């Protein structure tokens, strides 16, 4: 256990390292923020002065070294756009994204598991077929397109739900949360649903596959042979075996939910990290991009770690160290 935690952290550091390098090189290939943001009336001299001020005139490795030094003091640089430490800028938007991702995950489980269970237990019923086919649909619909349609239908056409923004928020632990207010919730619903759709069908299929796999197992036959009631067999003996992989996947997918919030946030103008990163890419706001990536890496590594631990907790068969690589 301890071993693989170390290993993970090592991995994470390595990954961050590679990524920062890539980003640095890439960013400076693309362009520099000065040309983008400078006043149209600024003189070339002024332009040069600024470039120098940002150290953008130095060789890329020099800039990188500077960055590393800053990193050593936990300083990821100041955003070119927001005039604030990159880390702070991101963390300000962190709760919003988290809230969205969590809600989405919650919804996807809420939708996926029961349907999957049903489809798995009654594989031949027409309802199950319908469920499975529509799950393919849920698979196929590109998130952004669904988002557009949601807005069109629910906000513009029916006017039931707001189409953008986060609505009223309440501050808890110094963070803004919108799911605590009705208005906020109504703002949260569409984006969350939009984000949840894909995962829901994933979980649905996973659950069904799991059920299909577990049902014929000997221990299920035994459970029947023991004369247990059908519902107990399903909800005690089958369900737990099915849920182990599902939980794992849900955990692992959480990362990708956060990532896909990039799309959803752009469409629903949800003030989270995802939208921030898109804007920052467009503005070449390097400190933000780098910081964002580092945070993401950290996030994912922790997620994977947690999931693994969870996995060992759930499934007695695996010891942690074994699951180290997956």
């Amino acid at each position, binding site marked *: 256990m301890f071993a693989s935690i170390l290993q993970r952290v090592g991995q994470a550091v390595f990954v961050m390292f590679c990524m920062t390098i890539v980003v640095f090189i890439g960013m400076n290939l693309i362009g520099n923020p000065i040309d983008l943001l400078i006043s149209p009336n600024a003189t070339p001299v002024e332009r040069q002065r600024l470039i120098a001020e940002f150290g953008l005139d130095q060789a890329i490795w020099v800039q990188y070294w500077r960055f590393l030094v800053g990193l050593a003091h936990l300083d990821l640089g100041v955003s070119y756009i927001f005039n604030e430490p990159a880390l702070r800028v991101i963390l300000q938007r962190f709760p919003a994204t988290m809230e969205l991702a969590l809600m989405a995950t919650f919804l996807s489980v809420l939708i996926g598991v029961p349907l999957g269970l049903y489809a798995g237990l009654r594989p*031949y019923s027409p309802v199950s077929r319908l469920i499975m086919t529509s799950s393919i649909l849920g698979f196929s619909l590109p998130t952004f397109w669904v988002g557009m349609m949601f807005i069109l239908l629910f906000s513009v056409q029916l006017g039931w739900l707001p189409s953008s923004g986060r609505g009223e928020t309440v501050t808890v632990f110094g963070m803004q949360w919108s799911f605590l207010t009705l208005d906020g919730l109504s703002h949260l619903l569409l984006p969350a649903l939009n984000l949840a759709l894909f995962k829901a069908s994933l979980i649905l299929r996973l659950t069904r596959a799991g059920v299909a796999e577990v049902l014929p197992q000997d221990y299920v036959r035994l459970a029947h042979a023991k*004369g247990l009631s059908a519902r107990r067999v399903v909800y005690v003996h089958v369900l737990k075996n099915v849920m182990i992989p599902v939980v794992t996947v849900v955990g692992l997918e959480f990362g990708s939910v956060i990532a896909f919030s990039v799309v959803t946030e752009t469409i629903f103008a949800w003030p989270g990290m995802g939208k921030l990163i898109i804007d920052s890419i467009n503005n070449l706001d390097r400190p933000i991009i780098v910081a964002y990536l580092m945070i993401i890496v950290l996030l994912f590594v922790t997620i994977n770690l947690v999931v693994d631990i969870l996995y060992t907790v759930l499934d007695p068969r695996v010891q942690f160290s074994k699951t180290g690589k997956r």
Partner: protein
Amino acid sequence: MAFSAQLRPEETQPILSVSGLTTSFKVARGWKPVVRNVSFDIGPRETLAVVGESGSGKSVTAMSIMGLLNPRTSLIEGEIRFDGTSLTRLSDAKIRRVRGSDMSMIFQDASLNPVYTVGFQLTEVLRLKRGMSRSQATEEAVTLLEKVRIPAARKRLGDYPHQLSGGMRQRVAIAMALACKPRLLIADEPTTALDVTIQAQIIELIKLLQDEEHMSVMFITHDMGVVAEVADRTAVMFRGDLVETGTTQEIFARPREAYTKALLASIPRLGSMNGTDFPQPFELIDHRTGEPVAAAATPLPAAPAGSLSLLDVDQLSLRFDVRGGYLNRLIGRVHAVEDVSFSIAPGETLSLVGESGSGKSTTARAIMGLSSMVRGDIRLGGLVAAGPKAAPRSVLCRKQQMIFQDPFASLDPRFRVGDLLAEPLRLHLKLQETEIEQKVVALLRDVGLRPDMAQRFPHQFSGGQRQRIAIARALALDPQLVVADEAVSALDVSVKAQVINLMMEIQRERQLSYLFISHDMAVVERISHRVAVMYLGRIVEIGPRRSVFENPSHPYTRQLMAAAPVPDPSRRQLRRGLVADEIRSPIRPKGFAPALTRMIEVAPDHFVLDLPDHAPEFP
């Protein structure tokens, strides 16, 4: 058991009576019957063995009785009465009430739910079926586990299935089955997955419990030996039909049906070779006519004496690291093979016999260069066969070949049989296509297959046929040594016998040498010139078959022979008490220095391992 064998079914009315049972499965079009019109009774405290080869429908019968088949895909006709009440007419809920309480079932591989503790699964039954409180249930669970002779029962409650050995799991399953004091226990191949010694223990356990609990047992198996051990009466099934029923004695002594005769004829009987020196094919009987199959059952000649050996294995040792714990460091080693030496003469068959974990297969793989060797050297007619200085494959493969256990896995499903056989020829012999074709045809003939079968794919063949194909492929480059790793274990008895005969036939014709790996003493007795018994990676006893079988000198060898079920009801021997001991694992701590092997010659060429100072390693 003696007395229960006497009381006749008619005297008391049967617990279970099956009449005209026909079970069909749904197929593409309509229903395909897999059990046809089967009728039998089981009296109180009686043991009925239902015996048959795979596909005979014996398990389906059991499932039908328990009502465990999915009604959507299966159809049950006929009458199943349990203690007078008809099960076929009961509602699902009612059946569930009967299940587990009045009749319960154990399966081949003790099928416990991997994610719940033994305790949970045991107490679950007690709580739900016998309405006990948690504490009561726990207590009862302990007593049950003790009843099935599980040491330190209370501690086991917290264990998960994977933490127990196969034998222990099966015991737990039995305990579970006994939880509600059933009157009928259906045991579906309960020992098939287990090693002989364990199998013996489980069989004993079941017999014992039957006496204690006064229950009837329906014992489903493919192993005539087991049948002879346990059954009062026997029902023989073949391809869905009940061929023959009768008391076990009758069946064994005076089989009426051709199939039964054929079956019995093909069973290797331990000790049947006493007094002979050399391997001898089975006298087989055609299952339709009941007439002997025309085949030379004459014993094989001795290996040409004094000729220098073909294969020399000298001080072979193989170890695998076991890692784990923090920073998963090396915490120990599996001493899979420990200081093993033997040699095989041309035309000779040496059998490596032992139970799982004894290292016999590993040895074989090492000889074929399939696993990296740690120490010792292997020479094949002057060539170094394994290790860093080994001769190139292309050379070795023309001298030594191998037959694998699973005929389903050992043939590439995407190749036509012809190509499978031709591949080695094309690769290693400079031959014309025509020559290759001729050779393929010849090979097929040699193993008793029709030449036109070359066009088929493996999946179009039966297990036995595939094993023949595997043999043919092994012979393609006509090697001097063929290593047969459990080559017949996966096959049904009748087929097994035929394949064994085939192998002997080939040996006779080609002066082959076999290294025959098996866990089945009886088979080994049939086929070998010499035998080596392996345990925990060591050879504990090696010598001429006759000498080893007629006076087994190592305690383990004796244990093995004692454990091997004897397919002869009249020779049911009484066994020693039920110590629930398991085969020890060959995992040793990191620094472990194994003792040097000292072999004592107890008879000419008959050696026994002598390790007084390492008693703990052995029973």
